[in-house]
């Protein structure tokens, strides 16, 4: 039986669709109404409120906390100052990605790591000989994420923290709704937004205050269906959709490196030793065989295919996560990779897709063919390689 998060007394009542999915053993709302579109729009126009309690959270404290995290992370954690957070990936010894997440530096020797999969053992195994304490705080914190242009207003009304002074990827401890909270300017939407963690006993107080304050800012509770669309627009990868963890798959073919995932920028080869460094150095020198790209589907071409069936253009109403063949040519002779997720973006008015292709086919502006089926018949539709993130508003950083 999936468990309830500390917000369930609220989310359970609000979720009129009763549409849930399992997330790390917890029930997580897919959408609060029978339709997700209001939630999607809220994130882009006003703001959405997500329950992110199921995230795995770890507290790493002690003299060598930095040393441990730097040994694991591909990024240079020593660059992360107190009051800042950092997105990073971490890999196995072969340089294959295990997971991605954020490291927040809450104090001189105090870090918080968030992860999508259980990571305690990996931390412990790497901590041998380090003077650190590692604590799985996953259930000591309930978390919400407030994402969208009006999120600062919502949070500002109920917090004494200096939100205007909190930069993108900044983190601080303060009070929200009168209860102690960790606030970070982070999220999974590519928009202006904040994540707030409080003690589980304070969860309902926090939720109620956010909902009340949010009423003046058109805030809406939002679920996974809307989140899927916005994270694709933001070009953010999803574990088990766009890639698999090296620790959770049996097959070499399903493992990938940060370079192959377009996350090469998180790999700092010239920092001190970290797990996977040598393998990644070799790959870097050789050049990765695959690369992850953003694709924009030619909807005029798609419309012409529909017209053959006497149908108007049909666009997906929700995001999809699926492995879809990508070809270099219309005749489907040269298979060059796979799409892993895609969505019609109502805000961009574009059909955007995340795909992993052979490196030679990843050039910006390049033309590829994506397989699609209309009325059960398979076609190829042209798609152009474009820059990711697809959606990147200045307010995210401002």
């Amino acid at each position, binding site marked *: 039986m999936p468990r309830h998060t500390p917000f369930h007394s609220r989310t359970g009542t609000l979720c009129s669709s009763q549409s849930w999915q399992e997330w790390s053993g917890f029930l997580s709302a897919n959408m609060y109404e029978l*339709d997700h579109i209001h939630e999607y*729009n*809220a994130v*882009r126009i*006003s703001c959405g409120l997500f329950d992110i309690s199921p995230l795995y959270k770890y507290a790493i404290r002690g003299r060598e906390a930095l040393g441990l995290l730097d040994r694991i992370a591909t990024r240079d954690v020593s660059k992360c100052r107190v009051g800042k957070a950092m997105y990073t990936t971490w890999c196995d010894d072969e340089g294959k990605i295990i997971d991605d997440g954020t490291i927040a530096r809450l104090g001189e020797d105090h870090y918080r790591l968030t992860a999508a999969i259980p990571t305690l053992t990996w931390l412990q195994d790497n901590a041998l000989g380090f003077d650190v304490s590692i604590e799985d705080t996953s259930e000591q914190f309930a978390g919400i994420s407030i994402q969208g242009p009006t999120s600062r207003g919502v949070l500002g009304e109920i917090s004494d923290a200096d939100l205007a002074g909190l930069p993108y990827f900044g983190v601080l401890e303060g009070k929200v709704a009168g209860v102690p909270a960790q606030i970070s300017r982070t999220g999974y939407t590519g928009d202006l937004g904040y994540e707030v963690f409080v003690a589980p006993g304070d969860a309902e107080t926090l939720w109620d205050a956010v909902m009340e304050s949010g009423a*003046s*800012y058109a805030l809406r509770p939002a679920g996974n269906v809307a989140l899927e669309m916005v994270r694709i627009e933001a070009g953010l990868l999803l574990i088990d959709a766009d890639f698999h963890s090296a620790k959770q798959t049996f097959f070499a073919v399903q493992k990938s490196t940060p370079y192959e995932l377009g996350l090469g920028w998180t790999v700092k080869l010239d920092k001190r030793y970290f797990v996977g460094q040598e393998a990644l150095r070799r790959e870097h020198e050789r050049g990765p065989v695959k690369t992850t790209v953003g694709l924009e589907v030619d909807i005029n071409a798609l419309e012409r295919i529909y017209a053959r069936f006497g149908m108007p253009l049909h*666009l997906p109403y929700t995001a999809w996560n699926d492995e879809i063949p990508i070809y270099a040519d219309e005749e489907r002779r040269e298979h060059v990779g796979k799409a892993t997720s895609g969505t019609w973006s109502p805000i961009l008015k574009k059909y955007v897709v995340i795909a992993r292709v052979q490196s030679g086919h990843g050039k910006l502006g390049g033309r590829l063919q994506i397989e699609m089926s209309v009325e059960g018949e398979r076609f190829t539709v042209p798609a152009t390689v474009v820059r990711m993130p697809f959606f990147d508003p200045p307010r995210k950083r401002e």
Partner: protein
Amino acid sequence: MSQEYDAIVIGGGHNGLTCAAYLAKAGRKTLVLERRHVLGGAAVSEEIFPGFTFTVCSYVVSLLRPEVIHELELAKHGLQVLPLDSAFAPMENGDYFANYADPATTREELRRHSERDAENYFKFSQLMYEMAYAVKPIIGMVPPNPANPGLRGLRDMRDLFKHIHGLGKRTFHDLTKIMTMSAADLMDEYFETDVLKALMALNGIIGTKLGPKSPGTAYVLLHHYMGELDGAFTAWGGQRGGTGGVSEAIASAARSHGAEIRVSAPVAKVLVKNGRAEGVVLENGDEIRAKTVVSAADPRVTFRKLVDEKELPPDLVTAIDNFKFRGSSGKVNLALDALPKFTAMKDPSLITGMMEICPSMDYLERAYDDAAYGGFSKRPYMDIIIPTTVDPTMAPPGKHVMSIFVQYASYDMPEYGDRNQQRDAFGNAVIDTLTEFAPNLKDIILHKQVLTPWDMEQEIGLAEGNIFAGELTLDQLFFARPAPGVADYRTPIRNYYQCGSGTHPGGGITGGPGRLGALEILRDRA
């Protein structure tokens, strides 16, 4: 002072801007001249009361052609359309009818009123969908002149007949019926619940001085169903920040291609020499020369004000004089201290959608009767949105703006006194009627902006306050818009073109006239 442009577009409404964007994109040195201090024409957002942005005239977007959105990359330039996917119609007996984005919820609501209507609702949607698909190519084509079609016109007409013929006999028959019947009769064929029929018939009367029982209104209804949002027909939405945001997005696209846009630059005349347009004279006397002049104004301004009638054939002058404007609607915009509470609204989520004051078909017909001989409806029909419920940036936190489209109101209403008294009387009738359905309304009004058809003419330039720059009745559509022989965006004056809503495919925020006009200009002056 004399400057030379490839093209001057008169009027910075959304169609003028669209035309300019296409011309500039094709490399033409283009100048837009707008009379007012703001762009947008009737698609304009203005801060009428400090901190509150009003979507002054037009308030919804749906008909904006997908090709315009994509070819001009309007999303990149700020177009953000939020679906308005529910409608709430309070009834006189305290009950209500609502439809929702989710078909299952709508079906349950329909069943509350009539099991039969619940089943027929899909059948009606099917009809509208088929009709919208049937007429879609018409919206995107330059009207051929059936009397003198030329090779291209013949080819276009052949393709069109092939398309419609291919849709099957039933669709063709339905289409001819819808082109001629009344909205009320159409509803009677599908539904039995009165409030539902009234709600569904609304689109047949908007912007038209006809009652729901007048023949021809079924077509006006269909016109409102042609909207497409992300590939979904019949979808309506609101632009973030009001419809001025659509104009701003198009203007931004035009500028990105090099177009120059001037506001507060009213044009007095088009310079015509030997039957050719050579430029314009501004009201301040400045002359600006151009190889092409395009009017995005309505047909009356285009043919009767900007050029001398002696430059035009008399038949055309007569046809333009006979072109029906007959503004029939007004607008009331409110700044509100809190949300209005509709007595009948059991589901508070409906406040984010459309609210329609149309409790019965007779209510609508009576509203028409009131204004048939002048004046305004004592209890008018209203189409209401509160955009701040989804886009809170249009007002301070917790405050709201309410956009109320009101029908019917006449251009001249002398029985109420001078223009100020007319406006006050009209505004009061609107507020009084709406207060019957939302009793706290009067207590929460911070500011009120009232526009009668006459005000719309004075402020925006819409002749007689017609929101479509000419009624959308069959006699004024396609190859007859604005008059036979000049429906292809050209005029009898060489190098003088039209691209406003008074040309095909007509009113609403479509961008269609602007785009098709520009493409014709580019054909002539390749």
